[in-house]
């Protein structure tokens, strides 16, 4: 009987071209995330409802993308990339301001185009290197770099340092996976190290202060260091088993800044303790592992590059947020994937899973 139900279930998933394991881990993460969000928002149904509405859009997009054949995807990639570039340019021209930055575009629905670039950039790189089995030469590498840097520069003008870094990372992961020549890797690394001073100079004052406050948050406990200190207090006071659901004093009483967005990881740590954080981590690892499985099993070069880039990029996004929240990295404002209130980011991650599922269906089709 149970077997029958399970088989029927598998049948439905297959028909919808959804990947069972990926779906299970993602839904578990979403469910847990909504619970944490409910607590972090102080029991606000409105916040949770908003999050659910964005997640439903994301899941719908995932379902649609899962149906698309990767061969069509390759052809659509340049167009999608172009569209994202146009949107990013539009943000700078007619974006909505908030908190000293221009990040949102309001075309009937309010969203952050910079998030879509996280998807468009690795897709574009994969598209470039799909056709040839040659190791990319200097010119082609330079062109690929340009395709990564162009949207990153546009995002950095908003300004949005965190997303700029993440877009760059997604692009470089794709570039490395495309078989980038080692000479370029080492050369690039050297240039990167040398570029740090130049980068430092180009940062805004508040961004520099954020970075310095990681080194010594106590130097300015009520200013730039406040976020990090309060976040560490939240995490540390959670202990091994946490204070319990809805018991985060740091978030409930307003000491922890941005508890529903950038610092929601601290809320998990405070309410569910070390055990809870490890469980959350395991969910992120499980999703990543499943994505890598799909990547490695894919037969197509494009599919492999895209799937592996998205898998590594997804985990990298999680790790960056966790590192910032625990005070290992400067706070630049990145969401915890699928948990933070960050509509555009969550829709983008879910869309990525849709692409992964499309790739998986395609592999099967080709393999058999």
């Amino acid at each position, binding site marked *: 009987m149970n077997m029958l139900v399970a088989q029927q279930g598998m049948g439905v998933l297959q028909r919808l071209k959804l990947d069972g394991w990926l779906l299970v881990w993602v839904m578990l993460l979403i469910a847990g995330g909504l619970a944490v969000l409910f607590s972090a928002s102080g029991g606000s149904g409105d916040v949770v409802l908003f999050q659910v509405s964005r997640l439903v859009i994301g899941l719908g997009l995932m379902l649609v993308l899962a149906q698309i054949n990767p061969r069509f995807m390759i052809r659509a990639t340049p167009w999608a990339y172009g569209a994202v570039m146009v949107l990013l340019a539009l943000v700078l021209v007619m974006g909505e301001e908030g908190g000293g930055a221009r990040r949102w575009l309001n075309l009937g629905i309010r969203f952050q185009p910079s998030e879509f670039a996280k998807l468009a950039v690795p897709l574009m790189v994969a598209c470039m290197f799909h056709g040839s089995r040659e190791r990319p030469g200097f010119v082609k590498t330079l062109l690929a770099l340009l395709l990564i840097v162009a949207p990153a520069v546009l995002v950095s003008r908003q300004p949005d340092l965190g997303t700029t870094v993440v877009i760059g990372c997604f692009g470089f992961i794709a570039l490395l996976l*495309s078989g980038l020549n080692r000479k370029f890797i080492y050369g690039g690394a050297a240039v990167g190290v040398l570029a740090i001073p130049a980068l430092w100079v180009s940062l805004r004052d508040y961004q520099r202060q954020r970075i310095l406050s990681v080194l010594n948050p106590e130097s300015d406990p009520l200013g730039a260091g406040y976020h990090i200190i309060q976040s560490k207090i939240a995490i*540390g006071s959670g*202990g091994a088993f946490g204070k319990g659901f809805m018991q985060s*004093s*740091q978030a409930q009483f307003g*000491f922890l800044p941005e508890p529903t967005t950038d610092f929601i990881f601290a809320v998990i740590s405070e309410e569910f303790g070390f055990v809870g*954080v490890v469980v959350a*981590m395991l969910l992120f690892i499980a999703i990543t592992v499943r994505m890598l499985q799909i990547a490695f099993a894919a037969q197509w070069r494009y599919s492999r590059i895209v799937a592996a880039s998205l898998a590594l990029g997804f985990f990298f996004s999680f*790790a960056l947020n966790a590192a910032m929240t*625990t005070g290992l990295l400067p706070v630049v404002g990145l969401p915890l994937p699928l948990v933070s209130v960050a509509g555009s980011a969550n829709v983008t991650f879910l869309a990525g899973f849709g692409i992964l599922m499309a790739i998986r269906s395609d592999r099967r089709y080709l393999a058999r």
Partner: protein
Amino acid sequence: MATRPASQHVEPGTLVRRATYMVFLLGLLTCVLLARLSYLQLIQHGYYAGQALGNQVQARKVAPRRGVILDRNGEVIVANRAGFRLTLVPEQVDDLSGTLERLAHSGILDADTKPELIESSRRSQPFEAIPIRTRLSDELVARFAVVRHRFAGVDIEGLLLREYPLGEAGAHGLGYVTAVSAEDKERLEPEEYAGISHLGKTGVEGSYEDYLRGSAGSERVVTNAYGRPLSRTRELEPEPGADLLLAIDRNLQAEAYAAMDSRRGAVVAIDPRDGGVLVLVSSPAFDPNDFVAGMDRGAFAELNRNTDRPMFNRAVRGTYPPGSTIKPMLAFSALTAGHREPDQTVNCWGSFRLPGSRRVFRDWKREGHGAMNLHDAVAESCDVYFYQLARDMNVEGLHDSLVQFGFGTPTGVDVAGESAGIVPSRAWKRANFSDPAQQRWFQGDTVVAGIGQGYLTVTPLQLAQAVAQLAMRGRRYRPRLVEAIRDPASGSLVRMPPVQTGTLASEAVEHWRTVVDSMVGVVHGPRGTARATGARLDFRMAGKTGTSQVRAMPQDDEEMPEEVEERFRDHSLFVAFAPVHDPVIAIAVIVENGGSGSGPAAEVASRLLDTYLAGNAPPDLVARAQ
């Protein structure tokens, strides 16, 4: 590992290999994260748990209830009223200046106070709530409640505020409290004022500050990040301050101030039997209630600029030539020292001249009083009699007499800032003048002192004390406002015994009778200077008028503005006690530039005695009046 082909082709294994490297890197990052989390959550848990608790729990001081002040009949004359104030915790406000600006814009704060508030926030203890506006009206409380969410770190706090129902009438006797100022904080120990919002400054509030204040309690308050209290746990109950019971009669005090009718001057009334101060009025005055809420600079400057000097406590600090009011005291000394017999007469022709001198000392009555004995000299206030007497007593005799009645030294009343007045002597003149020509004591100095002019000055309080001593036939008690202190813990009253500070020839019953009779003659005699007042009375009192010269009127005929001219008019003084035989009240009234002592001062004094005796008269007196 697989060997890499020499060709520049990308092998299918490349992606897997490179992805694996990256997974290793991410795995490493994950390990660092786990290490970090174990460090924070497992090793440092205790520290951060404490920090989280410290975030929410703050030790706060709980203000004690300041002791209330009651009058002699148990009526409240200084009360505590529940009120609200606006406080701000600087650490919880992002932009202090902007926040204050927005509060001012919302009409909740006075924009002028901004610099001061920024200064006091700089001096505040960490996470201490500083008051930014005391005494919020109900309307302001409601207005703030609407916009409260926009002002993190700003909150409304309930507290007990001082209230002075007597208003201006009680200002100089009772004093006032003001919010603890920056200077106060430097002067006091932090524990002394912790949790205390106001300090007593002058009057009884000032001199009994240590009794009234009480001591602060403490509580643990759980707050959120915006400082809003979520729960409280009392750790130490505050100790309320002691209540004070005054000798002041609330109604009489109010009536005295009303009777002064904003004229400059002072009224002091004393219960001669124990020195209890029944009335201590300095007019004009200020409203002490304004100081509780904190006065804006403009109003304060206005108070200090006012030429009538409402902040000046004339009753204990003001020094005036006593004029003829000291004649009964001098008369008594003359009798006891043998300078005069009661029936010995002096002829008064309207002026007096020292032998060998051309200087003429005029009597107030130009045509003269004729033959004067001691009784008539006091009753009719004959100046010539006392010019002559002063000359006979000499400066030493005058000085001794006046000192015996308490002039020249502070009375020791329990209100700060008392003046000593001046009882001049040869030594005093030597010490206080630099010009050798002026250091000499002249006979003329002695003569004018005989009618309470010249260098002699007294405070209204000293005058009332001396009259009380006359009333008590020689016994003098230290004047005091506070008669008893109520212990806040047990509720029991601790009465303070009266302090006798002088006894003057109580055995000279005859002399006392002569002097007192002469004072009765002032009011009730056929030619008494206050006979007009006496005619209106339905009780008998002993009194003495005084008209003291301010200074020589400029002699040139230049027209003076009326306002200036008014300030050159004589001071009107009147002293009295009643009932004549078992006196219960002695009073001194000064109306600056009020003209003759038989005028405004006598009117104020008789009105107050009338009121007081109506409520406190011995039965036989009431019977006589009916």
